[in-house]
């Protein structure tokens, strides 16, 4: 999340955005559970007092306060969605971070955190096509780099929970098999009745017997794995700035409309 001054996307009507998203506010959150998500990341389940629910793809701010009043605030994508006051985060530990190492290594069940949200009304997805209304099911292509999968997992889970008929694919670039976030949940989504097609790209090390060598995603691999431009998918891309810039440029070259590509970049903090 970072320098917010840009977007090559058409603007939704203000009324729609205002209606669709609960008003953000500060809330006290109690850590209900923590678990190791990957060797470098922790999943935090929060019970958020007064949380108004959130749409899949939204984020929140976490504020930490030291005894002398010093505060540090960071934005994190939310891995859950819907009306529940149970909010799930999955936080990657940044090497020189001030906040993420604390959230990943120090926080435990029962701790309280301040959160502000839900935030963001653009990088969200809502189910449109229920059973029996497949005609307007717009396909959705999700493309994740590393921890950028968090809001995309929320979207994929919401798609399955809604029984939405829109074709869904997730292209997920990750360093090693151990670095896959929500590995069990993604497996279940692949087998769900509103199926998700999952394509994994391993950049450092593959599972044994994997058909392709480890390496960064290429334009060809992207072209092979994403829903073709001709099917007019809505595309969500989330990851590091370099990953998102590269992928979004390729998507445009491959004929995807710029206004159908929604991006979120994890910046340098």
């Amino acid at each position, binding site marked *: 999340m970072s320098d917010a*001054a*840009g977007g090559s996307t058409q603007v939704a009507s203000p009324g729609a955005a205002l209606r669709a998203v609960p008003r953000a506010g500060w809330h006290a959150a109690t850590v209900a559970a923590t678990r190791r998500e990957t060797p470098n990341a922790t999943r935090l389940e929060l019970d958020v007092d007064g949380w108004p629910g959130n749409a899949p793809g939204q984020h929140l701010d976490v504020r930490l306060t030291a005894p002398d009043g010093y505060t540090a605030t*960071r934005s994190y994508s939310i891995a859950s969605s819907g009306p529940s006051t149970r909010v799930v985060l999955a936080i990657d530990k940044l090497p020189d971070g001030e906040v993420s190492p604390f959230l990943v290594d120090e926080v435990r069940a029962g701790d309280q955190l301040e959160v502000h949200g839900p*935030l*963001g009304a653009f990088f969200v997805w809502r189910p449109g096509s229920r059973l029996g209304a497949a005609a307007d099911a717009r396909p959705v292509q999700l493309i994740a780099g590393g921890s950028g999968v968090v809001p995309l997992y929320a979207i994929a889970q919401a798609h399955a929970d809604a029984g939405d008929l829109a074709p869904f694919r997730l292209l997920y670039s990750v360093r090693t098999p151990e670095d896959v976030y929500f590995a069990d949940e993604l497996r279940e989504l692949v087998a769900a009745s509103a199926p998700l097609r999952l394509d994994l790209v391993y950049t450092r090390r593959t599972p044994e017997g994997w058909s392709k060598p480890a390496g960064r995603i290429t334009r060809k691999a992207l072209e092979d794995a994403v829903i073709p431009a001709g099917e007019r998918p809505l595309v969500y891309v989330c990851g590091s700035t370099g990953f998102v810039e590269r992928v979004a440029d390729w998507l445009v070259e491959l004929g995807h409309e710029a206004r159908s590509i929604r991006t979120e970049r994890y*910046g340098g903090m």
Partner: protein
Amino acid sequence: MSFITRGFSGRSRERDDRLPPGQTLVHDFPVLSAGPTPDVDTADWEFTIRTESGEHRWNWDEFMALDIEDVSTDIHCVTHWSKLGTSWRGVSLDTLFADVETELEYVMAHSYGGYTTNVPLEELLDGQAWVAFEFDGEPLDPEHGGPARLLVPHLYFWKSAKWVRGLEMMDQDEPGFWEQNGYHLHGDPWKEERYW
């Protein structure tokens, strides 16, 4: 509401008076955009100011012939990072508005790619805003808004529209892109006007 977080001490105590509340100093230059980065060639680039009476228009060469200023300023992103003492080159909005007659008080900035953001005109004049085309002595990178972006450093940085192509005068304040998608209509970092 505010309470102490168990076990958190924080790292930095060198609190700089130039940092607005809730901001953290960074030394890199993070990027956030809602979509792909538009590819804008300076040969095709144009900048327009549209008022109730007509249009003022500059192409790249005409723009480069205007009075160019060096700007050193702090910038503050709504996603909690700030950079101090950044250096830019660009054309002041005072220069661009020198021959513009308008009674209208609000501005919608429009960008290549469709991004918009709203700013009151009085917050763009009197040395408060530029159209910048250089950062740190180099042409502005496309991912940071090149070839040219609005620079309104006293507001959160989403107001500094990347890939800016023109300003449209309006008779009332209307929300732009991020303002419709959850960000504050005004965006003063010192008042933490982040979200509505």
